[in-house]
């Protein structure tokens, strides 16, 4: 559970709405076999790991993804290894302390699978995995929100990239992995404790950004409707 500060910080009461844009950059790394894949993951920059777990939310996709992250998707559709795909798909980046720990668990699954299957030591994938990274440009929308109630109307109007920045990317920036909405609400003491709990319960890993925006907006709207009644 998130720690709630009781003391109000007057300077922090205004929420600065930011937005971001991501751009994909090739790392020039490619893997055609599981062994190559493993070696690249072992030495890959962390921003590339981040890209393949999260940034795909901002990229073209069609309906629900069968496997949540790009690595699991390649294990299934490139290598045709359902077992490894399931194991990699279950890795939830929000449950690790940092991306290094996530990398460690990725490598454990891959090493185990390489040890188990002689076939996977030489099998070539039907398509190679392209390791990509992203640059993120963050900019200020100059919108400031002073009262949490205002969020109810504002969130449905936010761009999905703004939701990405404040609800997903925030967890990478903050040591305590708290999203920006929850962090801001803590400045109001215990007043919005229930809302903080509601927001903390939203799992961003299984939603697209449009759905995530709807869930966050609904949490704010329900909370303030209850307060009025």
């Amino acid at each position, binding site marked *: 559970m998130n720690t709630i500060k009781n003391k109000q910080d007057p300077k922090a009461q205004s929420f600065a709405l930011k*937005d971001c*844009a*991501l*751009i*994909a*950059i*090739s790392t*020039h790394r490619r893997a055609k076999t599981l062994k190559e894949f493993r070696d690249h993951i072992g030495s890959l*920059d962390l*921003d590339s790991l981040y890209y393949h777990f999260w940034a795909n939310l901002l990229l*073209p996709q*069609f*309906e629900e993804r069968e496997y949540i992250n790009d690595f699991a998707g390649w294990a299934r559709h490139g290598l045709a290894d359902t077992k490894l795909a399931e194991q990699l798909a279950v890795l939830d980046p929000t449950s690790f302390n940092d991306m290094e720990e996530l990398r460690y668990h990725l490598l454990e699954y891959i090493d185990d699978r390489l040890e188990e299957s002689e076939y996977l030591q030489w099998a070539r994938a039907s398509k*190679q995995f*392209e390791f*990509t*990274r*992203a*640059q*993120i*440009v*963050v*900019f*200020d*929308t100059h919108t400031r929100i002073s009262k949490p109630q205002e969020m109810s109307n504002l969130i449905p*109007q*936010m*761009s999905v*990239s703004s939701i990405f920045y404040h609800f997903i990317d925030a967890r990478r920036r903050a040591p305590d992995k708290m999203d920006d909405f929850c962090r801001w609400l803590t400045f109001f003491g215990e007043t919005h404790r229930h809302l903080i709990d509601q927001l903390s319960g939203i799992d961003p890993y299984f939603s697209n950004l449009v759905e995530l925006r709807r869930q966050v907006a609904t949490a704010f709207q329900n909370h303030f409707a209850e307060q009025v009644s």
Partner: protein
Amino acid sequence: MTAMLDCYAAVTGEDVIRHLQQLAEPLKGKSVVHVNSTRVGGGVAEILEKLVPLARELGLDTRWEVISGDSEFYQCTKSFHNSIQGDRITIPETLLNHFLEVNEQNANHLRNVLEEADFVFIHDPQPVALLKFCSKRKGKWIWRCHIDASHPYRGTWRFLDRYIRDYDASIFSLSQFVQLLPHPAYIIPPSIDPLSDKNVDLPQDELEAVRTRFELNPEAPLITQISRFDRFKDPIGVIKAYKLAKQYIPNLQLVLAGGTATDDPEGEVVFNEVAVAAGDDPNIKLLQLPPDAHRTINALQRLSDIVLQKSTKEGFGLTVTEALWKGKPVIGGDTGGIRLQVINFHTGFLVNTPEGAALRIRYLFNQKQKMQEMGIKSKEFVRENFLLTRQLREHLTLMVSLQHGAGDRIELG
């Protein structure tokens, strides 16, 4: 918001336009020059025709320059194009030297504009050597590759690499196309403009006029491929697929319509080969359309039941995007950017052979409900991912990123 931005907001939503305005804020007043080799015809010209005015609306001082060349120059650049896509073509030294001379002549003409610009986007190989002749350039130069460069013929790539490697960045449509270069290689798929003549909604009487003009039977099913007469587009494979499908759909009609680009000297030769393959079948219409026949192409796509793009190599395949935007299922070659757009059973089918295309044609004409569902999904898919506003957003992001260095996170303001 200006009238133009209002029009885009009506299609994309106001949040998308607001996002562009905010991202463009730090670039206001910057001079941006795009350079390619043709003003009309082909996907690059179509993108620039709309991308440039939209960037201006956002406050960027953007212009579009076109280099000129003679037939020898275009013969050389067409060989570049084909060999980047994998053909093993050894280009004679004399042609390569002529290519450089033409680039130098164009650099002499454009030098002031190019050297003063804050950002220069050079599209495809034709103008790639301009940079070599602009030694006092002060801005960032970006080479934009619109071609499937996943397996280039190494001889050609080695020659081009000498010029490309001096750029500050390059852009490829897909990560599979990226070649090893000593600068950042950005991945930006291209896009279509929903407000252009090629894609805007058309009144029914205009559709009927096109149908009458090309003697198309309104009662008979129609399949269409719109693309240059180029072997990589496999027009002969399309005719073969049509003939196979026609055994089951006797009144099937096929339109093969190609625009002409001034930088494509092979078009006429391939057209003649296609005409021989079509024979005297009255239900096959081969149309050579002028490069500005955008509304005619738009109408042909809208009149079609299914659109084909049976390419064996494809940079991105904007004709696929256009067809999807019009709510048509697409049967496309399993290659390049078509894979990013055609999703089996959702927006169409990927195929590898004329036989595969024929099977899917038969399937769709037997599953009319499925065809309709695919159409609805296809349009939304393009709205979310492949409209001009998305491409411009990525260009703006790239420019901001180049201005601020190589870090993975850039905080503005």
